[in-house]
């Protein structure tokens, strides 16, 4: 072996060391697999951020706290379970915090509220990301006109998320695009309602949005206008809402340019709850959902993931079970075909509470509004094309949730393959492509009716309500019996599945053969009756769609509604009192429930947000 001269090697080693010193770039390891505001500073980047802002419309996002069913903008828990539409369902121990919300005993530490609050502010900031990125685009790829429209869409989305916050909590912080981590200005307080800011965003959006869009899911001018009207409804500014609603009724079109459908001749009530017929002429603003799109079920209608019967179309999870009172609301007078506004809850329509799946059962034979069987899955009635709803075996736990199961968010068996997907590997067929109708045309008509009652014409109001009822009267849109009960996929007869009847208020011709009731007109019966009738119509038309709690809140006098203070408490405590006295329905949860006037109209602000802002956020009244 050649003898090394160590004196040669040592300097060599030193040289290597010295060389290493010069590796200045050695520590330069910028993040991989992500984008920054520089890469995004072009039209495609802005478009992508805008899609990202839309994608939170379902209320869920990557890395969110809690679960999708806590944050969905369908507001099944906050809008429907917390009101009188439905029970939480499932078993008492499952989703306990949701039970606390149902029973008005949710505290500021409730496990649902913080995720919901966070999800909506995540949406707000995604919209702000678009607004912050736009000025950084210097490459000429975004025209002034396009920037204007993108700004309008982003402001609409920001308003949407702030609106959802305002509905639950009323006194919420408002975060515009100047609020960032780097600016250190994110610990925002909640000195009061932010309707003015929401309205300003919507006014701006409405001004710059086109009437139609190339893509059905993109917001248009009229959707912004409808939300602005809705904001005015919550803000009790009927005079401002009135012209907007009139414009919508007279001129409104969907994003794809279809005229909002007066008379509803082209589609049925049930089409609003079917993935294959969504975005129809009633879709003022539909939150899009898709399945089998590579997202492992994440883009489905996320809020309702648990809201399926525990057998039948799905195998889990048995949440969101319509209440006895809600079912009773569909009772109609056998002669007039009109709802029993004051007496509907005096007795329960016949149901199979406590009756085994194997025992004989004949459904209720009295007259019902046909919308009941598109709103409630009940025993003995065809459940879409899944067969006759068999009762107890589909209800996860009758003792806790009652005999009814949800249906509006369910898909058809025939379309199961294309409209449903397993959600994140564990909830089979519970991610669905049904869109959620944030605002549908019936909403617009019924707001218009409310406005007319308050500051306009009772006749006009009656007309709007009858327009909605006329659609319900369309027999082709009713639930019909199967040709063969054993083959539910084999089609339907023309025989109604139950004893349906629809009547109109006052003298009304209608197009679908409902009963005209000249003596039951709004003018004849007076303003109070008219209010009650419109409110009841909203209940049965829009039940199980996450609106009821906020409608009651809007009508209650606490924040200026027409029904006077205590209205909501009376309504909901009456509801509770009814439910707990249903024979064979021991729901212990509802037994301890009590709606506290002056407190329960709003949800408690998450305690975590109060402490994270060092108290800048103040708690709503009555909570600690």
């Amino acid at each position, binding site marked *: 072996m050649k003898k090394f001269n*160590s004196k040669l090697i040592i300097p060599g080693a030193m040289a290597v060391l010295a060389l290493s010193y010069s590796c200045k770039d050695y520590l330069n390891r910028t993040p991989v697999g992500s984008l920054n505001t520089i890469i995004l500073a072009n039209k495609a980047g802005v478009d992508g951020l805008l899609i*990202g802002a839309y994608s939170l419309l379902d209320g869920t996002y990557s890395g969110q706290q809690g679960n999708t069913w806590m944050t969905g903008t369908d507001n099944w828990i906050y809008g429907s379970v917390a009101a009188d539409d439905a029970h939480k369902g499932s078993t*008492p121990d*499952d989703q306990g915090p949701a039970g606390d919300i149902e029973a008005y005993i949710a505290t500021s530490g409730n496990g649902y509220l913080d995720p919901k609050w966070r999800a909506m502010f*995540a949406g707000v900031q995604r919209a702000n990301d678009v607004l912050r990125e736009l000025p950084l685009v210097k490459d000429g790829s975004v025209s002034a006109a396009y920037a204007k429209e993108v700004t309008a869409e982003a402001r609409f989305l920001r308003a949407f998320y702030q609106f959802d916050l305002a509905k639950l909590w009323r006194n919420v912080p408002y975060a515009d695009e100047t609020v960032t981590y780097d600016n250190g200005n994110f610990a925002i307080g909640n000195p009061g309602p932010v309707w003015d800011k929401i309205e300003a965003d919507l006014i701006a959006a409405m001004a710059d949005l086109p009437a139609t869009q190339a893509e059905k899911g993109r917001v248009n001018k009229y959707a912004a206008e409808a939300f602005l009207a809705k904001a005015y409804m919550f803000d009790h500014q009927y005079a401002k809402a009135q012209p907007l609603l009139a414009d919508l009724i007279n001129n409104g079109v969907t994003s794809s340019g279809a005229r909002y459908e007066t008379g509803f001749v082209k589609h049925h009530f049930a089409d609003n709850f079917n993935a294959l017929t969504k975005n129809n002429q009633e879709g003022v603003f539909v939150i899009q*959902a*898709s399945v089998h*799109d590579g997202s492992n079920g994440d883009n489905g209608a996320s809020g309702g993931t648990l809201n399926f019967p525990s057998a039948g179309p799905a195998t889990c999870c048995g949440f969101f079970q319509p209440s006895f009172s809600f079912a009773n609301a569909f009772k109609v007078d056998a002669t007039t075909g009109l709802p029993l506004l004051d007496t509907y809850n005096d007795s329960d329509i016949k149901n199979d509470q406590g009756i085994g799946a194997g025992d004989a059962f004949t459904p209720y034979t009295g007259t019902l509004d046909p919308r009941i069987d598109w709103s409630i899955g009940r025993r003995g009635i065809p459940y879409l094309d899944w067969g006759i709803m068999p009762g107890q075996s589909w209800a996860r736990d009758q003792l806790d949730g009652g005999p009814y199961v949800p249906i509006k968010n369910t898909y058809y068996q025939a379309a199961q393959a294309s409209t449903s997907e397993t959600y994140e590997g564990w909830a089979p067929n519970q991610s669905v492509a049904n869109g959620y109708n944030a605002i549908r045309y019936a909403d617009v008509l019924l707001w218009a009716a409310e406005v007319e009652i308050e500051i306009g014409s009772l006749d006009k109001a009656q007309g709007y309500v009858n327009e909605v009822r006329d659609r319900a009267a369309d027999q082709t849109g009713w639930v019909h019996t199967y040709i063969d009960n054993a083959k539910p996929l084999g089609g339907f007869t023309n025989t109604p599945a139950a004893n349906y009847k629809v009547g109109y208020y006052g003298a009304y011709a209608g197009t679908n053969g409902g009963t005209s009731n000249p003596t039951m007109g709004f003018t004849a019966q007076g303003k109070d009756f008219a209010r009650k009738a419109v409110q009841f119509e909203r209940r049965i038309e829009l039940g199980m769609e996450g609106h009821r709690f906020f409608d009651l809140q809007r009508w209650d006098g606490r924040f200026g509604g027409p029904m006077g203070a205590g209205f909501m408490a009376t309504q909901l405590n009456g509801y509770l009192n009814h439910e707990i006295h249903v024979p064979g329905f021991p729901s212990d949860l509802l037994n301890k429930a009590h709606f506290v006037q002056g407190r329960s109209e709003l949800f408690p602000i998450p305690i975590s947000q109060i402490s994270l802002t*060092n108290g800048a956020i103040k708690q709503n009244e009555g909570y600690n």
Partner: protein
Amino acid sequence: MLLCCMISSLVVTAQTKHTGKVIGSDDKQPVVGASVRIKGTNTGAVTDVNGEFNLSLSSGNVLVVSYLTYQTKEVTVQGDQYITISLEPANTTLNEVVVTGYQTQRKKDISGAVATVDVTAAKVIPTSSAESLLQGQAAGVTVVESGAPGMGANVFVRGISNFGNSSPLYVVDGVQQGDMRDVNPNDIESISVLKDAGATAIYGVGGGNGVVVITTKKGKQGKTRFTYDAYYGTQRPLGGNPYGVLSSDNFAKLLYQIQPANPLLNGGPQFFDYGYQAGTNVPNSPKGVANAGDPNVDPAKYVLDPNNSANDYQIQKFVKGAGTDWFHALFKPAPMQSHTVSASGANDKNNYYFSLNYLNQQGTLIDTYYKRYQARINSNFSITSGIRVGENLSVYYTESPQGGAGVGGANIPGGNQSEGNSVSYSYRMQPEIPVYDIKGNYGGTWAGLTQLGNAVNPVATQNQQKQDFSRNWVIDGSTYGEIDFLKHFTVKSMVGVNITNYFYNNTGDNPYYSGEGHAIDNNFNTGAGYYSNYNWTNTLQYNQIFGKHSIKAFAGFEAKDALSRTMSAQVNKLFSLDPAYVSIDNGDVKSVIAHGGPGQEYSTLSFFGRLDYIYNDRYILGATIRRDGYSAFFPGRQWGTFPSLSLAWRMSQEDFFKGISWLQDLKLRGSYGTSGFNQNVGGGNAYSSFAPNFGGASYAINGAINSAIGGFYAKQIGNKKTTWETDKIANVGIDASLFNHLDVTAEWFTKTNSNLLDVIVLPATVGGASAPVVNAAEIQNKGVEFSATYHGKIGSDVGFSAGANITSYKNKVTKIASASGYEDKNFQRQNDALARAQVGHPLGEFYGYEVTGYWNTQAEIDAANANAAAKSGKAGTQYQNGNNSGGESLGDFRYRDINGDGVITDADRTFIGNPNPKFTYGINLSATYKGFDIATVLYGSYGGKIYNYTKYWYDFGDTFAGNKSNDLLFNSWTPSNPNAATPKAAAVGSFGTSGSVNSWYVENGSFLKMRSLTLGYTFAANMLKSVGVDKLHIYVQGVNLFTATKYKGLDPELQAVDSNGLGTDIGAYPNNEKRFIFGVNLSF
């Protein structure tokens, strides 16, 4: 100082120049610094770095040669010009060579806190994860093991230092890595644990959590040596009814008592005979329960269609009487074995060590295992005088059933399992549910009703893993070149690497046996990944002794780099799950989901140096400094400097101690310095970033039902100010060697970890992007450590040794940056977090309501409510209703009104138990008599509390349907049983029962385990010689023969749920199962 050193040297009067060398008889290595004195004179010399001395001597002079750790020897000078003096070691460990940061030091020369592990004692415990070797073997090191095969242990050096990764840095043969799980214990030569800044600061930004330095074996001088070390044993599952759950008949009784209308019950406290359920294609999809003879349970109807669950018609027969023993359906005796063969040897210049290892630990949890095949080659060559090269290389392959993401390792369901895993299912499955249905397919929660619960048959889950696997190929190793020059200098350059390649296959059946999942499609997922890191280390070392001055110094430069790549994909609806068929291509192509991409690359640049100066063998100074730059921080925050200074005084060298014959050594040490930690931050943390995400940022903007348009979302908020964690450690230690047999070390330390990296929760208004990791908090650990070992002999036949060590630390959060002043951690199913990190309290301390008993009489309730009404001024106010929680009722927990306002609200929560043990301790005892040897290792932990969350599942009538405890049926609250184990048995829960995090769950987690008891026999050498065998030792061993504890769950030794979930039992794989082992050690 150098000058000063050079001057001092002993001067002698010349007679005849003699040169000599002093060596140790044990290792044949030169003894540096030995005193060589001519008897009766003051003339003498001190040996130099080569052990040599020069003296002018006359024939007949008697030399007195002394060195601390050797017995003093007198040698009469003969005519030889060159004298070699061999010293017999004294019975102390002071001369032990200890591997410290980048160098070796004799134990007596160490000024920092370094614990050495007695590898011989440690490796007797059969383990598939080498971290376990540290348990109870080193003061200052807390090790929490899992019984799951291949599951690494939680190792904390001097307490838990931070909110994230609290593991020490492992340095294996100079290569820095994240764990030591797969180092073959038989290959380990030594393990040292560096604890104080004096020892760890040399690792700078990597050393903050302590450093474990492992060296593997080298060949030893002499003939080629072959060894065979093997053991085979059986692991026995826990016996009895470890969770204390009900038999089937008793469970029916309980249901009948609390829920008489439960549809599972056949009119009284007994179950129906059968359960059945049909898929949606069966008319009316019937499901329910029935007795024999009912047409619904006619076996002729039975269908199980693996390709379409809608056609299924399943029937299962409920088990009455004792019911199904789910625990023992899951846990079965399992074998464990390990075989290592090695060959090693050395000559003057070269040495080598070669070993092969096969390890196979089957888990007692069925269908779990960890297998490892490993080869190691270590070799060192002196190419020429002063130039050496060498390498250490370990190549291994591991296999385990369950794969998963996660670099370099199988994701074995180990430590603490969640509610969705098999251990938890053992109590979540009701006893009347059979393991198999009437046709031999799996039974489960599918048939019948919701009341069966939503647990998944765990036997099915485990069995399904039979064809799952995770395979890892790993190369760990280093190679170096080293040159001595200019007599006192050595330059060394080393490149170390760790390269991991892994892939895994998981298949999932259609879980037809699951209540919630029986329509889920079968699926297959597979993934692969690559991980590599290297460190390139260059050091320049200088050693010189000038008379009484010994100087050791080195300077180094190091570059480290780590990167990873992953790919995984998943597909549903495969025609068959045959292992030969499953592939991503063979499923429903529309369901394919793929993930993958480059991982962040991390790099570190470092410059460091150390000086050890010893004067007169008694005053020791060690100083280190390291400067590190780390890529994950923003430029400007990347570089940190970590200095330390340590001083030691070997008092026993002083004259005033000289006369004390029983004191061989006494050293007082002190150190102060800093090190850092940088692992709890990702590479993108400094930068705000956006990303696409198909689930979270795409939207069907065009209204389609089967496609969505991709978009971007704000993924991460960046923080440019984030920088490393800084650990300041002050340490005082005493080492003593007494009575020639006893070594004692005691340490006191304070360790303040500031700038801790953690994500501070931000208000929602900042948006949904991940909050950045910031320097958020400070934690202080203060502690005391003590260890003692004693080696003794009685006569010539009996030898014995005893070692004990104790580790005690107090952990306290001293700063936290969040606006609220605390961070809630450790969330389970109960509404609130179980733990709260708050200033003044230890990390992981449980936080909730304090239970003072039960509400025993209506009078108590009335009195409390009256007081509540009086204090609040509102009539009707209830004591336990402060948060609208429904008030209290008889048999509920009574919570303490901490703030005295008369009502129980959130504000009445308090700290209810500290999971950090007051101390942990280990005891090793061994004795030999002639050929026999006996040894035991005991390990204990005292004073830590456990939050036994498993009770939430089985001690309440209202929590998820599943089996319940004997306590709930036989010892729950009733008016006549006020001192009950559980609140009243009821089908409905409340804030006063299952609805709160409270002190009732908190149990004493102290334990003492006999980790092993070994009885061995070494055959006499003369017997073996004829067959060519040098040594033959056989042994039998019992592992975990006893665990003394008051804890009611399976095992009080609990791995952290996450870094913040200490001492929480959410269904842990026990680590106290008995094992019986037979082993052999053979060398020839």
